[in-house]
């Protein structure tokens, strides 16, 4: 018998530090599989964020650089400009990218930096203990919105993919979800297009992945996937938001 599914080579052997059922692990595997399939492991440089995935430099078997909170797109810009032949990606959560790092992501996208951003949106701050994020849904309970997010005081969730797709810089922007095997396959296809766009030198690419946080949502992993499907997808519709000519 031959192996038709195994651990991708672009992941190290280090066990993930994430909570049981956390979809970070699925996203890591998809990124590593795409790096393997495109044959770019030796020239890929990843930027680790601040958040639960801060330790992802231990998990990806490529060159990695840690960035200050939210600044991954700025660090990626520098690395890509100094090493234009490398493939540079940042891996960021919603607390990192959609809150403290909003300025960096908007301007990196607007400049059309030839980098790829993997954006994990689980509607909450994970590592710091489940506080409200800019992506938290209206009415969603978190430790800093114990009665549910009040849109009068805290505004509405930011749709990063839609917002960035209005700019001229990006080549490819898509939102996918990790809540079932079919959508995981679609998510991988989007990640592959995003990396391919960079390999082809087309411009900025971003894939937003709807993810879970069972621990801070206060649900089991199985309940979390259902909650994502029922509550997040209506608020964050899946699909490709920007595909310029030449993306394949």
């Amino acid at each position, binding site marked *: 018998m031959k*192996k038709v599914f195994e651990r991708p080579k672009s992941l190290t052997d280090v066990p993930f530090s994430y909570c049981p059922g956390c979809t970070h692990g*699925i996203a890591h595997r998809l990124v590593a599989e795409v790096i393997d399939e495109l044959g770019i492991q030796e020239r890929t440089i990843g930027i680790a964020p601040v958040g639960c995935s801060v330790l992802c430099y231990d998990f990806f078997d490529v060159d990695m650089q840690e960035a200050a909170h939210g600044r991954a797109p700025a660090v990626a810009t520098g690395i890509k400009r100094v090493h234009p032949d490398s493939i540079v990606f940042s891996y960021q959560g919603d607390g990192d990218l959609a809150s403290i790092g909003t300025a960096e992501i908007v301007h990196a996208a607007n400049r059309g930096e030839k980098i790829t951003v993997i954006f994990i949106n689980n509607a909450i701050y994970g590592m710091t203990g489940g506080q409200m994020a800019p992506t938290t849904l209206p009415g969603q309970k978190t430790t800093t919105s114990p009665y549910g997010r009040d849109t009068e005081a805290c505004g509405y969730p930011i749709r990063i993919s839609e917002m960035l797709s209005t700019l001229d810089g990006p080549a490819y922007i898509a939102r996918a979800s990790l809540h*079932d*095997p079919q959508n995981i396959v679609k998510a991988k296809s989007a990640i592959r297009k995003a990396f391919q766009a960079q390999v082809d030198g087309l411009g900025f690419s971003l894939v937003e992945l709807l993810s879970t946080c069972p621990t801070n949502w206060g649900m089991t992993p*199985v309940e979390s996937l259902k909650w994502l499907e029922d509550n997040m997808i209506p608020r964050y519709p899946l699909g490709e938001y920007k595909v310029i000519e030449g993306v394949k």
Partner: protein
Amino acid sequence: MAKGRPVFNEDRCKGCQLCTTVCPVDIVHMSERINSRGYYTAEVTDPDKCITCMKCARICPDVVIEILREATKEEK
């Protein structure tokens, strides 16, 4: 469907149960065993029934599962 079987690297399992919810032939279940990290692990109860759809491997957040598949006639 092609014949094959999943292989679980039980020491990496965190017992999240996601794999048990997606199997179309219902052969992935939680075991009574506790691994070295203190989690109850998932297991395959009837590997002969596996259709190698890879759904369990795709949804596993910890890359616990490998899928083996018998070579098809063309490959032999």
